[in-house]
Every structure is written in structure tokens, then in C-alpha cells.
């Protein structure tokens, strides 16, 4: 049967071997050791760490002080595309920033300049740096009377726009300047109960498992699919296969299914290993014995399908190298330019879903509809790409289309002809 023949071909490919090595390495080095540290029931009187609470009265002066410090230093650290950019505002921009500070604090431009001289100054060195930095401190910084938090957000967003975006001064990132309070015993217990009772332990661990493996499963299958799709061309047997009776749809779908199944099996085996580990570590606790497998299918399968279909489509259209480079670019964009939050920031079109903790079930469930939407969306995109691959394959088979090549290569061939 063709499906099993294709599975065998996948299994004996070099790229599949590398895929196995990477996934196992990721599983052991990241998940296995994290999951080994068991979550214990909190004991009254213990230290449970801190959490931030939203408090506009704390956020506004803290954010303004940090903003003024950067303003006086003439340097703002921004991440407009996810990468660091030191922004040095020019005179015109400084004037606009100064007027924003003036509106927030109620000080005139001259008073703001005076405040620089009267502020407490701390000289310090950043780690590994030999250049001293200056930090201005404003212990009694006041916010203008009647300043509402909403208006403050508008002003701070305006400043972010002047800086080119990506600064820490925007309404979405202001919680960073919020107040920290200790977590109480009751809160810690409630969190533990969510883990032990609602998630039945394995629910939380399954999320952590999918979080780690989801990082690689978006990229590595692109290589396997690209190399596999390229095999016919590399072995110069494309024309022989084109002349066979089998339909393009059946051939492409069988290959897609073989790739997805072969790459899913080791992930499910790792889920089984994680399940056994959890059963040993939490013996005596009621566990959900299906969640590792259902969540793997729900969370990772759409990613695997999308990456495989992408690798197949781009390779059929052009070359495996282009598929790989585009795959790396997409992965880079998702990992480096995506969400900074590792927990609780899931949006409807996220390819890589992050929830880097076995805890915080309620935070995950609050975004559950977005999670489901994104999984359906990417599974749908994968099917669209597979349909596209069938169409491209059919066109190539009919001699209507050849893979795209860089023009200078074709020019040479034409000139020879």
C-alpha cells in the first residue's frame, strides 16, 4: 500500500533522523527536568512569592519617573520589531516629549529642566559594561491634578508613537510599573487546587509539554517535508511518477498523511513517557489519563500539519532551500517578534501558543476560545496549502508549470539554446 511505502521512505530519511534527535533533545532537556520538580501543596505561613496588582496611583508616578529618566538621558530602549533599538530623539521630538511630561506632571518646560538638576543621581554600571549609566530618581514626583488613568494612557501612547513604537511606555505594557504584593496562603492554595483538582495534575503538565514541543514543531517538520518532497526531483524520477495512473490528489495527500503520521508518532510516544513520569511522581493523586494525548492532538497537530504543508508547497513551487529559509524566517518572526508573555497571552491567529507553566489554568481557560480558534485556523491553512500543493503538482505534471528559479540561471540556459 502506497501510504506504508511512503511512511517507510520518511522513516529512513536523514532529515527524519535529525527530527527525532531534535524532538527528543527538546523533550528531555526542557520538559523532563522541569516536570521532575513536583508541585507541593502550600503550607500555611510559607513564602509564596509576589504578584502584581493593578493600581493606577502606583503606575502613573512610576512610569513617569522611568520616562523622565530616559528623557534626561536622551536615550530610550525600544523593541520596534522585537529587537533592541536605542532611540535618541532629536530636538523636535524632545520638544514633543517634554510637552507630554509637562501635561502629565503639570510642570512647565523650565521646571522640568530644573528638576533634572535637583534630582538624586545614581551612577551605575550595567553587567559586562564599562560605560557608566546615570539614573535620575524623583522620590516626590507628583502627577498633575485631575489626571485620569485613561488620559495618562493616551499621552503615554503618544510618546510611544514619537519614539517609533516598541518602547516600554505604552498602555499595554504599563502593568510593569504596577505595585507588587505578596501572594497569600489562600491564593496559593486556590492555585494549587486548580492544578490538583481541576487539571488533575496531568492537565497542567500536558500544557507545559505542548508549550515546549510546540516551539520546534513549527519549524523542524518544514525541513523533513521539504527534503521528502524534493526526493523525486533529486533522484530524477519525477517524470516517471508523472506518467503513472495515480491522481495528483491521491499522491500528494498520501505523502502529506505519511509525513504527518510519522512525525506525530514520536510526539505521542513522548506524551506517553511524560504521562508515565507524572503517574510516578504524583502517585496517589487522581490523574486525567487522556489529556496528554488529546491536548497533543489539539495543540500540536495543527502546527505539525501547517509546517508539513508549508514545506511541501514551497518545495513543489520552487526549491527545498527556499522552503527552509522561509521556514526559519517564519519561525524567527513567531518566536522573537511574537508575544513576550510566556503565560496568558494567546490570540486568535497565533501559530506558536505559549503557556510555559503547569499552573495558571484559569489564565489559560480565559483565552480558551482564542486557543480553539487559532488551532482551527492553522489546521484550515494547512489544508489550503495541501490543496495548493495538489494544484501545483497537477500543473507541473501537465507541463504547464515548472518550479520558479532565479532568472539568471534560466538566462544562461536560454542563451545557450
Amino acid at each position, binding site marked *: 500500500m502506497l501510504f506504508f511505502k511512503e511512511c517507510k521512505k520518511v522513516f529512513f530519511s*536523514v*532529515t527524519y533522523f*535529525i527530527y527525532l534527535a*531534535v524532538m527528543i*533533545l527538546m523533550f528531555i*532537556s*526542557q520538559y523532563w527536568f522541569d516536570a521532575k520538580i513536583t508541585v507541593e501543596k502550600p503550607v500555611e505561613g510559607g513564602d509564596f512569592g509576589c504578584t502584581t496588582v493593578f493600581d493606577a496611583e502606583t503606575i502613573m508616578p512610576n512610569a513617569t519617573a522611568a520616562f523622565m529618566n530616559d528623557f534626561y538621558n536622551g*536615550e530610550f530602549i*525600544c523593541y*520596534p*520589531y*522585537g*529587537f*533592541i*533599538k*536605542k*532611540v*535618541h530623539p532629536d530636538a523636535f521630538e524632545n520638544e514633543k516629549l517634554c510637552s507630554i511630561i509637562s501635561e502629565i506632571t503639570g510642570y512647565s518646560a523650565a521646571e522640568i529642566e530644573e528638576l533634572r538638576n535637583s534630582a538624586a543621581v545614581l551612577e551605575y554600571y*550595567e*553587567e*559586562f*559594561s*564599562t*560605560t557608566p549609566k546615570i539614573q535620575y530618581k524623583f522620590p516626590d514626583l507628583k502627577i498633575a491634578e485631575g489626571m485620569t488613568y485613561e488620559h495618562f494612557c493616551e499621552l503615554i501612547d503618544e510618546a510611544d508613537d514619537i519614539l517609533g513604537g516598541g518602547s516600554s511606555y505604552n498602555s499595554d505594557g504599563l502593568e510593569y510599573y504596577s505595585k507588587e504584593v505578596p501572594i497569600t496562603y489562600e491564593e496559593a492554595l486556590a492555585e494549587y487546587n486548580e492544578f490538583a483538582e481541576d487539571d488533575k495534575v496531568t492537565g497542567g503538565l500536558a500544557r507545559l509539554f505542548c508549550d515546549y514541543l510546540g*516551539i*520546534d514543531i513549527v*519549524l*523542524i517538520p518544514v*525541513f*523533513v517535508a*521539504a*527534503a521528502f518532497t*524534493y526526493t523525486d526531483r*533529486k*533522484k*530524477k524520477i519525477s517524470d516517471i511518477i508523472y506518467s503513472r495512473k495515480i491522481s495528483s490528489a491521491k499522491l500528494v495527500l498520501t505523502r502529506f498523511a505519511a509525513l504527518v503520521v510519522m512525525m506525530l508518532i514520536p510526539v505521542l510516544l513522548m506524551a506517553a513517557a511524560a504521562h508515565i513520569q507524572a503517574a510516578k511522581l504524583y502517585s496517589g493523586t487522581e490523574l486525567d489519563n487522556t489529556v496528554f494525548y488529546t491536548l497533543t492532538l489539539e495543540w500540536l497537530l495543527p502546527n505539525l500539519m501547517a509546517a508539513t504543508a508549508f514545506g511541501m508547497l514551497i518545495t513543489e513551487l520552487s526549491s*527545498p*532551500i527556499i522552503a*527552509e*529559509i522561509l521556514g*526559519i524566517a517564519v*519561525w524567527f518572526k513567531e*518566536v522573537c517578534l511574537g508575544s513576550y508573555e510566556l503565560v496568558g497571552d494567546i490570540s486568535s491567529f497565533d501559530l506558536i501558543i505559549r503557556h510555559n507553566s503547569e499552573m495558571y489554568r484559569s489564565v489559560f481557560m480565559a483565552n480558551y476560545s482564542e486557543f480553539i480558534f487559532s488551532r482551527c485556523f492553522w489546521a484550515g491553512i494547512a489544508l489550503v496549502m495541501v490543496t495548493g500543493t495538489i494544484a501545483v503538482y497537477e500543473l507541473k505534471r501537465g507541463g504547464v508549470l515548472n518550479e520558479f528559479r*532565479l532568472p*539568471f*540561471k534560466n538566462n*544562461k540556459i536560454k542563451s545557450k539554446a
Partner: protein
Amino acid sequence: MNSDCLLRITKSNLRHNFLPYALLSSGLLLFVPVIFGICELDRQLSAQPLEMYLSLTGMFVLTPVFMPEQNTEIRDTVRSKRMDCTEVYLIRSLYSLLFMALIIGGFTLYMHHMNCDVDKWHFISGYGAALFLGSVGFFVSGVSGNTVAGFMASSVVYIANFGMGKKFGDLCIFTISYHTNGRIWVLYAVSAVLIITALIADRYKKSI
């Protein structure tokens, strides 16, 4: 082999096999200052564009050195010629290494011009990272006869360094960015071993 023959081989390879990857690397070179602010960076931050982004140049230009001959028809034709195939690989490797030096060296000078805190170690480290990534791809491509696998192995090393860089010890390619105190010469030595091994393995391989 006379110099005329050498020149013709180099020109032909540059035009047909090297140009797409050189363009890709040049695109990366132009892209880095757009996304990464290259102005008055301190020593550690200055290493990031070189070690983390321009190091990909090594992967782009060194990994596909064996690619043309991985087409069995081309390989058979090349093997029927008097000139040794390994010599052609050496020529391709040498101009690729030179191109990497130009890209990374040029960008280091540009960073210096932009008042970044860079010195010769930034170049050495950035070039070492590119060389190591490239040699991993070169090795896997040469030994397996599969350039796609070479790119895959090189990408995996790159990604793994992002997540677990310091755990790689001397083989961490982000030496200055992660402040690993790694011995950079180890990167160079391992790269040299990988390149030489791949060339020897290819020479004694009867078929792909």
C-alpha cells in the same frame, strides 16, 4: 591545473552556484540595521547583530558547497573530468570563507563608525559563529549527500544556541552576547575538523 583553468572554474561557480546565496546574505546584511538599532551599542549588545544574525551567512554560503554535484548526472559528468572534484569544493569553500569575512568584517567596521563598542574580538567571534554554523551544514551535507539535511542540522544548532547557548560551553556561538567565557579557538578548530572530514568523506564516497 593552470591559473586560467582555476579562474574559469571560480568565475563559473561564482556565477552559477554562489550568486543566489551571496544575494541572500547581502539581503540579510541590509536587513539587520533595519530591525536592529546599530547606534552606540555597548560591548555586549554590539555582538548580537554579528553573532546572532550575520552568523547565518555561514549557513547560507558554506552549506550548499556540495549541492551541484548532489545531482547524480552532474556528479558523473564532473567525475569524468581530469580535475579533481575536491579541488572544486576547495575553491568554492575558499571564496565562501572570504565572502563571510567581507560581510562580517564590513559590518564590524560599520558598527565602529556608528560608535558601537566593537573591537577585533567582535569580528573573531562573529566570524567563528558563522564558520561553525556553516561547517555543521557543510559536514552534514557532505556526509549524507543531502544539502537539505545540511541546512536542517545548521538551523538546529543555531536554534539550540538560542535556547541553551551556555550549555554548549566552548561550542556556544554567542560567545560575547551570552558572555560565556568560551574559548573561541575551539569553534575554529571544530569547524576546521568538520570541513576537512566532510571533504575526505566525500572523496571516498563511491556514490550518493
